[in-house]
């Protein structure tokens, strides 16, 4: 086997793991491999996948975005307030996503211009924005939206079969794939994450790349927030707590390096699906939620250890 074949095989490792888990669950539970359950799993995955796509950018840059859960909550509250104020769904979604992008760009500016480590900058924003969500909502859920269109975002179907969030997830996956592999911005993300100094000396505006990446991450968290709000028909100021860890898990399971410069969006999608499939399968098998955590944690460690083992 040549080095290149080995590298390809290693890259496909997460996908093989996903297939293996699916086959195993199909034997264990007859309900697992049905069309409706498959789409159910994907719908549950979509919220994590969307924020994980954004997270992939910050991690490719050698950074991290811990604030996605809080951004999700603020955006969700803002969307709900707009809806409750009698405005239409389009405006609510627009405000939420713009706000998410705005909060993300603030992360980016603090990191790029303020030269603060991403971990610290977004940790601060995690706490700050959770507070903002509580302030805006006065600490209570905002529920009951009359808009049919808004309800469609989380609960609707395309062609009476595919849930809208799944379509959004796949569309965003395709977009991220394109951006990361085919555009100047994508190339600059890999270059900056791989060696920021060399990138800067090659004329890459590394500050702009960073700011843009965190902006996108914020917008994706907001999109996830909109879908969650629509699904629940309610905005919770405490929503999304801990989501950043799920997103990071998906990215890392997908083989993207926390050191930056190496990784791909397909891996993130697979990573998110792997987590979702495990959740769903363990539920179907009636495993207690306590043991589910033990199993999930073990799978994560195993996957990462196998990944390390592939290196020499």
């Amino acid at each position, binding site marked *: 086997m040549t080095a290149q074949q080995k590298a390809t095989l290693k890259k496909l490792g997460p996908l093989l793991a996903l297939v293996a888990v699916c086959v195993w669950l199909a034997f264990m539970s007859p309900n697992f491999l049905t069309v409706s359950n498959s789409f159910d799993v994907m719908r549950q995955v979509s919220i994590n996948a969307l924020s994980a796509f954004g997270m992939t950018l910050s991690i490719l840059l050698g950074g991290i975005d811990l604030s996605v859960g809080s951004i999700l909550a603020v955006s969700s509250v803002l969307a709900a307030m707009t809806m409750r104020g009698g405005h239409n769904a389009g405006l609510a979604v627009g405000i939420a996503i713009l706000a998410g992008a705005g909060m993300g760009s603030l992360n980016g500016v603090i990191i790029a211009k303020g030269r603060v480590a991403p971990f610290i900058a977004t940790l601060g924003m995690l706490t700050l924005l959770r507070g903002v969500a509580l302030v805006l909502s006065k600490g209570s859920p905002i529920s009951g939206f009359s808009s049919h269109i808004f309800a469609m975002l989380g609960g609707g179907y395309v062609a009476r079969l595919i849930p809208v969030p799944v379509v959004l997830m796949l569309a965003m996956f395709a977009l991220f794939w394109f951006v990361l592999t085919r555009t*100047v911005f994508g*190339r600059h993300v890999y270059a900056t994450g791989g060696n920021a100094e060399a*990138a800067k000396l090659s004329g*890459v505006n590394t500050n702009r790349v960073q700011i843009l990446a965190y902006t996108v991450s914020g917008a994706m968290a907001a999109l996830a927030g909109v879908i969650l709000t629509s699904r629940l028909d309610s905005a919770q100021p405490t929503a999304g707590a801990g989501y950043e860890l799920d997103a990071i898990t998906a990215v890392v399971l997908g083989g993207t390096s926390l050191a930056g410069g190496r990784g791909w969006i397909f891996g993130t999608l697979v990573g998110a699906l792997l987590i979702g499939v495990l959740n769903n399968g363990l539920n179907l098998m009636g495993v207690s939620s306590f043991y589910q955590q033990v199993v999930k944690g073990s799978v994560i460690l195993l996957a990462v250890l196998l990944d390390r083992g592939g290196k020499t």
Partner: protein
Amino acid sequence: MKVTMKGISKSFGPVRVLDGIDFSVAGGEIHALIGENGAGKSTLMKIISGAYSADSGSILIDGELAAIRSTREAEALGIAIIHQELNMIPQLSVMDNLFLGREPNRFGVIERSRMQAESASWLGKVGARQINMNRAAETLSIGLQQLVEIAKALSLNARVLIMDEPTASLTEREIGTLFEIMTDLKSRGVGIIYVSHRMEEIFKICDKVSVLRDGHFVGERLVAQTSFDEVVNMMVGRELKERFPKREGSLGPVRLKVDDLADEGNIAGIHFEVRAGEVLGVAGLIGAGRSEILNALFGVNRRTSGQVLLDGKPLSIGRPADAIAAGIGFVTEDRKSQGLVLGLSLRENVTLVHLGKYARGGIINRKAEERAVKKLMDELQIRARDAELEVKALSGGNQQKVVFAKWLAKAPKVLLLDEPTRGVDVGGKAEIYHTINRLAAAGTAIVMVSSELPEVLAMSDRILVMREGRQAAIFDAKAVNQEQIMTAATEGMRAS
């Protein structure tokens, strides 16, 4: 002590990197090991120092078969290696580095006084008693750090010392000091294996020279009985026509004019002109402010004064992107940390600077990109299986050509070169010189910083000599010799 390697072979996967190598070094001799990048020198040195094990063959120490399975075992047998990239923990003190992993202690508490006394004695043995052993290693110059490493090797009772490109980042004066110490070690019976690309040094300091080519042992010669040409022929396996190819073409009008350039404390009062088609060499000791001129011109370091005119028009350069937009390119000194994104492919590195040229609306035209990369690979004779290979996997010479290629996707008006052939073998150097000449002939103005005086003398039209952050002199390259340059670079400095 005599170390003899017999019939050493080693393969990585299907690739045989060493094939039946015989090599030996005896106490009291300095034995050069040379070969082009990829010839197998590093692998051989890794085997003798225990980092790799050979597939076949044997290592004998004073005629007895020795098993070296780890660097620890090699050290215990008296074989130590000093790597090109030094192995120090920058924040720890000199003394802590010397005794790292074997600190004299009593129940886990370090015995400082004993450590101090021993440090002083070992540093004295390499003529580095003046080093304050409580200073953090990172505050020492590379030259001094290297002496600390040698002291460490001696303290491990090394009888055979392997030095991998030890002079690559040293100033002329530091090299002088190093050679004195090497000669002293030799007289005390230490054997030294000297791995280097610098032919002058081999003829100056070594007793024997062994040549590897493509994993084979080509031969061993006594330095006193061989010639420069013979060694180069053994190395490249062909007649190398000229070491420094001649340049055709004449000089054009002034391209780059620099007036009273100064940065934040490193350099001041720099003024020079470079014509289209001209190569201005910049010589001087390390730390004299040579690289700083390039960094200030390219917008890496902030300028505090000075005017830069390109083709008569004043430039305002605040950051590298401005310089690039004006048509200036910069081959940086350290290709691994500044020149390349090691994890990206050859293609992605080559097109990083002028990616916009192959993109429309931010979307890259992959076909156009691949075509351009292919063309540059041919032009610069970059040897790689294909353009999708990570640059990490390329040899030093090919990596350096990739750094050049980055700037040639669009013909630069001015090209700044900082140590353009560092760590590149003889064949690769000649190809880089060809590229420099070709660019000059096409009208590029070139400013080249180099620590290798023969290179500066042969490649430049004029030579600017720096001394302690100031411009000491500008010479016509045809009317000056090494001694005059060294005098200008050191005149008035304290002798030490």
